[in-house]
């Protein structure tokens, strides 16, 4: 099966390692690219040399360019329309969740604090996104909280 390409934008190194470990333990054919903030993310996404990812995970609080700003730039870009964005955040306030969705996020993940829950969350998000991409479903209606 085709490789699933994932980008994680996250400034915290521990969080990146945790994420990497969880994803590697899943039996999915994935390839991860890490970027440390929104600036680096947008540069990567707009670089014609980069592979277009299936899914971007976006931390809300990052230096230079944060998650909300990055999300709005992704949604405003014609080239990046159609990219699935999952917000990856410690906040679980209804207001934050709603604002991310209104801003164009597809998935809102409340950062789990143990590896088993992170694994099951990532599995659900990656496989659901895979269906949206491969089974003619309208991505505008792809909203999910996990």
């Amino acid at each position, binding site marked *: *099966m085709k490789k699933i390409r994932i980008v994680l934008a996250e400034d915290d190194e521990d969080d990146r390692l945790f994420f990497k470990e969880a994803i590697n333990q899943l039996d999915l054919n994935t390839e991860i690219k890490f970027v440390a903030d929104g600036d680096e993310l947008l540069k990567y996404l707009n670089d014609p040399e980069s592979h277009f990812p299936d899914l971007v995970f976006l931390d809300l609080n990052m230096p230079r360019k944060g998650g909300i700003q990055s999300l709005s730039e992704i949604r405003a870009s014609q080239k990046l329309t159609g990219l699935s964005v999952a917000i990856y955040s410690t906040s679980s306030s209804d207001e934050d969740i709603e604002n991310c969705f*209104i801003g164009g996020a597809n998935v809102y993940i409340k950062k789990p604090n143990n590896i088993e829950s992170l694994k099951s969350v990532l599995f659900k998000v990656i*496989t659901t996104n895979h*269906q949206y991409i*491969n089974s003619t479903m309208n991505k505008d209606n792809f*909203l*999910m909280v996990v």
Partner: protein
Amino acid sequence: MKQVLGYQTHTLVRKVIEKEIEKLGIEYSYSGTGHIELMNDINSEDYNKLKLNLLEYGIYIQSNHQQQMVQRIKDAIDEFLSFEENYNYNLSTYISEKLELNYTYASNLFSENTLITIQSHIILKKIERAKIMMLSGKYSLTEIAYKLNYSSPAHFSGQFKKVTGLTASQFEKIISKRNFSDSEN
């Protein structure tokens, strides 16, 4: 003015495919569920042209046999869900009769190639249909639940929440706010 569109993917896809094949003057027969038989051998130039033209609509010619089968299973599921009268049948019987396949074989093939089981795929598809019906504004949640063959509105709401993490009304609220903020910009 924003309008909500409802559409039947399989009708749409069929029309596009027919148009594109006819454009190249190829004789074909359409046997449903996205399965097409070309009556004559076509040259590779025409084949590539057809492949590229269809790709513009996001339609792939599946070259590998397993992918072809998975696509046919997906199409059979879409077709099953599109007509309420099908709900009298058992889906596994429907799939195996329609595709002349053993259901266990079909279901293994499906999971191996799509990352999820046929059952989860169907749940996801039903929830997607429910979303389109909700956004059309024509149906109450109770009507949607029965139209999609849930045993009760509570069963439907429970499954919606389980799949999306949102309640049906949260979902509607977010989409309407999103559309509103789009039209302001």
